[in-house]
């Protein structure tokens, strides 16, 4: 056991400060300390993507990072993506197009997809498949996940057009 460090995080708009061992994984800090259990753990080796969050504007697999490395960072997790009365477009789209089954991969998928649609607002199917390749799903075979993301993209784009 090593000495604890003082860590500051801003998660979903809220400030948090706590003392943690530097070896503590970011995903564990989110899940155990902040009770944000929507980010899951599937491998702890960076392969499955169920722990995906947004950190300082980038998609990050929170199992591949120590909480100490995230000190001072700003994060968004699935819990910050919408409210029960006002779901995020992707949350709606996944339900509408049956983009989930057991739901274990879903928070990570939605977090990654949201970032992808910021990076490429009008993606082709190929771009979605490639851009989502860091997130595994064992249930859906991806076909409806891709469909959900494509549908969300066009929804977001038409909303943008309407606003202009």
């Amino acid at each position, binding site marked *: 056991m090593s000495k604890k460090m003082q860590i500051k995080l801003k998660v979903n708009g809220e400030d948090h400060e706590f003392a943690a061992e530097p070896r503590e994984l970011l995903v564990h800090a989110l899940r155990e300390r902040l009770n944000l259990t929507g980010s899951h753990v599937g*491998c702890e*080796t960076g392969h*499955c993507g169920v722990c995906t969050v947004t950190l300082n504007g980038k998609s990050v697999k929170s199992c591949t990072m120590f909480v100490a490395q995230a000190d001072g960072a700003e994060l968004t997790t699935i819990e910050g993506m*919408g409210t*029960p009365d006002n779901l995020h477009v992707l949350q709606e789209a996944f339900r509408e197009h*049956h983009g989930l089954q057991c739901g274990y991969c879903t*928070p990570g998928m939605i977090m990654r997809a949201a970032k992808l649609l910021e990076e490429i607002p009008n993606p082709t199917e190929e771009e979605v498949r490639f851009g989502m390749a860091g997130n595994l799903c064992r249930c859906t075979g991806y076909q409806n996940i891709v469909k959900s993301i494509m549908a969300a993209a066009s929804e977001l784009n038409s909303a943008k057009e309407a606003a202009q």
Partner: protein
Amino acid sequence: MNDMTPDRNERKANLKGLGSSRKRVEDLRFTQGKGNYVDDIKLEGMLHGDFVRSPYAHARIKSINTDAAMALDGVLAVLTAKDLEPLGLHWMPTLAGDKQMVLADGKVLFQGQEVAYVVAKDRYIAADGAELVEVEYEELPVLVDPFEALKSDVVLREDLDPKADGAHGPRKHPNHIFTWEVGEKEATEEVLDASDVVAEEMVYYHRTHPCPLETCGCVASMDKVNGKLTLYGTFQAPHAIRTVVSLISGLEEHNIRVISPDIGGGFGNKVGAYPGYVCSVVASIVTGLPVKWVEDRMENLMTTAFARDYWMKGKISATKEGKITGLWCHTTADHGGFDACADPTKFPAGFMNICTGSYDIPTAYLAVDGVYTNKAPGGVAYRCSFRVTEAAYFIERMIEVLAIELNMDAAELRRINFIKQDQFPYTSALGWEYDSGDYHTAWDKALKAVGYDDLRKEQAQRVEDFKAGKTRKLLGIGLTHFTEIVGAGPVKNCDILGLGMFDSCEIRIHPTGSAIARLGTISQGQGHATTFAQILASEIGLPADSITIEEGDTDTAPYGLGTYGSRSTPVAGAATAMAGRKIRAKAQMIAAYMLEVHDDDVEFDVDRFVVKGAPERFKTMKEIAFAAYNQAVPGIEPGLEAVSYYDPPNMTYPFGAYICVMEIDVDTGEHEIRQFYALDDCGTRINPMIIEGQVHGGLTEALSIAMGQEIAYDNMGNVKTGTLMDFFLPTAWETPNYTTDHTTTPSPHHPIGAKGVGESPNVGGVPAFSNAVHDAFKAFGLRQVHMPHDHWRIWKTANDLGLHG
């Protein structure tokens, strides 16, 4: 009828019953990250457990020193077999009638075996503690090959009397577990001898793993004040787990509550009882605090529940014209260090005897020998019904090999041997009674959909071009027509640990016309909360949106055997319909009383009972529900509730026709799936959207298995594929789009005619992918090459055939 009454179709649509692509009710919480999986559970004072595991596949344990671990701040206990022995818990019974060490008792039999269990304040300290446990091992010779194991002097299971019978009869060798024989040996051999053509092949279905994204885990919480144990866990069969825990712990069953919360995929991985559950229960009893244990990915792949590992030697015979005359199969089944297969008791090789497939084969014989080796125990039905995937792969490979032998088109060979529609119910040579099917219709539809004849022409041209040096890519057409056997099963021949494989549903209708139904099953992503409400909506005429489905809490749900082997729809779905019918029968009496007519004078119409011949006189189910609680109907008890324990009269037999068109790069071994067409016939379709999703998912698991996924061992018994780096799970990038289609042949014995679908795509998908690879190389003399067909193996196949010049 007054003008305000919506018409019949509209009323039907409002129910969102059978056949509706109703959106899933589960999705709201899942998409918001508000699922409640086992690792999300936090209880006051909860401790964490972690295992010390064996680095050796076969070794004697000379000593275990736990002093340093115990001295670590935050470690509360370290359990070894010695601590469990006084409780009689150092070994536990397996589902297959064998026993398994909970913690290593004197020796270890596979790499990763549980040796000691460290309990600490958090998961990091538990892992630190595990590091500090010192174990001295003496290595023993390792057996990873089942054929060698049957000849070796090295005895793996020294705890067993080599002369005594095992759970399934006599054992031939200390490393032999059982022999299981079905069909007629001599008659089949005579047929083979007398037939025009015999094709012979060894078909290996490699060892793999279900690998759901959520691993296995539990939280055990012993409340010492009132003597009750609550066990939360990733259990596909919560009620059976409660009974097992009671039997092995001595706690009375009413003092145990098992809860399966949301489960992040199961695919068979979460059927069995694992040492982690037992150790957590003991640790909670010892410490008086809740104890959580969640395995990591490596532990998951290395220790809990492998699947397959069947060496299937086959012979199939036919007339010159291609009519199949006989089938013979001998399987050597590698079960690992303990026989922990999850099969119904009387079926030590599951339903492998469905290996005559979709074909009318008059004479057949199957023998399976189970063997101990230095590999992890398991043998679960990975998205299949008890060895049905092995059986389907075997027969679909044998058909292809026979087609080569006969020099006949494999689609045509299948067609002339299919069981015909008028032969159902059909009794197979290996003893099953197939309920219904129309294989020819499905097959013709599939061939037409892909343009089969043109594909064959294109393929012939491709071979020409390849030979002429114009291309380096080959084209494979992978055909499969599979028949599954699911819905275990009739209590007369199906049980697990003596528990009959019925299932159950209990319904309560509330006064305002909404309802709750509880079932003995548990969803792991299949959408039960959505689909079971649909079955009920059609049966009782209340909207699916007004029906809550609850599963997984043994204190509230009726007893059932759980969800695996595609049994939920065939068994629990039937129980749901039957319980719904009981509700309807009582509702009929109440309606008749309210309408002041005789019981027989009213009839059910979508969401109401109407007076026959006077449709303007009716009572809706909603009105009847209220009446059940506020009117004194003479001779009828108040309330509206029902329960059904459904013992299915037979299994169900879903089937399908799959065709995979694959391009193969001879120089890199890479493949590209150009088209995949999947026609499924699962009888009555409850929710087409969910069926389609199940097919996509199952096909992708089939793709993984056929094209790369395996649990591989080196000859020292080291697992070579223990992380997601080496264990292949395809991403969105490697996964193709699938075209789904269907025919509908209802099951004649199921109350709503449904057959189950979750596993069909895995059962049929594996041979379709594998046959495509074989087919691409057929023109160059390939008969059989073992899966998984990863890039290197495909390259090697091309190389062995001399295609690299």
